[in-house]
């Protein structure tokens, strides 16, 4: 009897620690994406969009428009990789100009940038992995 109880608790313990390590693994991946994304952001985006994502006047749009980023989530990867020409209507104002393409970015680069941008500057959209980026990039407008 005592043995059974012990076994029961022991297995529960193992399950818990397994679950926790799983969660940690996920968190770790998220953090890895986020940190790499920050590096890529500094390299590719920061000059125009600013370190705090506020953009520059009416020249370069801010990345703080949480609503826009949410509503256009599936198109964001496309904008990051293929750039944008013409008008873009954010919640508060309109912008017109040209954002350069960065065709050299791989799916994982785009995903890391997505994780950083959509979880900084007041945004909180959670994780976004490379396979989602791959899927989204196939369905660009």
């Amino acid at each position: 009897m005592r043995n059974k109880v012990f076994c029961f608790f022991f297995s529960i313990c193992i399950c818990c620690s397994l679950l926790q390590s799983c969660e940690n693994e996920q968190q770790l991946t998220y953090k890895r994406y986020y940190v790499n994304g920050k590096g890529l952001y500094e390299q590719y985006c920061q000059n125009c969009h600013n370190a705090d994502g506020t953009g520059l006047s009416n020249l370069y749009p801010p990345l703080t428009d949480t609503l826009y980023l949410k509503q256009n989530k599936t198109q964001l990867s496309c904008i990051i990789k293929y750039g944008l020409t013409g008008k873009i209507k954010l919640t508060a104002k309109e912008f017109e100009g040209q954002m350069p393409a960065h065709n050299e970015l791989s799916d994982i680069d785009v995903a890391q940038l997505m994780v950083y941008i959509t979880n900084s500057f007041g945004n909180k959209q959670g994780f976004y992995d490379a396979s989602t980026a791959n899927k989204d990039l196939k369905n660009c407008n």
Partner: protein
Amino acid sequence: MKTVSLILIITTLLQSCTSKQDHKLPILGNREAIEHQVNGKTVVDTVYQTVPAFSFLNQDSVQVTNKDFNNKIYVADFFFTSCNTICPIMHRNMLKVYEKFKNNPQVKILSHSIDVKYDLPSRLKKYANKLGVQGNQWEFVHGSHDAIFDVAAKSYLVAAYEDVKDPQGLVHQGWFVLVDKQKRLRGAYDGTKEDQVQQMMVDMQTLLNEDEK
């Protein structure tokens, strides 16, 4: 104890007084020693480099010349509207300078576009509007290729050149060059560094005070 603190206070007060009076901006650029005769004696004068005459078109397609900068201090820089490397950082910082000295008749800003092919006045106007710049205190100027690259290298000592290897084809340094009312170069600050631009704003005030004396 009391006397010690009193002495300390007095010395710091004195020191702050003298350092304020002594602080003068250096005069940069090339210089020449010129000898001439005064009352039969040979006197040596230092002649400093000054910005020579120029003439460009601004964002309103109006001619802008060196005369528009007479009796003014100004900051000169080089950029182009489609540049996505250092220019946005430079002009994000320059915007702070513009806001600080807005409507001060003694201060101007002169941004030369090195993209002489595409940055025509109409495009410069769009850029200025989007940046939030009205009026002509901040001039965005267009000129011929030779004129622009010549003033960069010779008048303001800023490197700017075309480079086929660069993705955008144009390369330039991010200096903000501070020019005084006698058109002498009094400071050069890295326009991409916030602390240097802060220093420039302090120095601009120093320069304005210097001219008042």
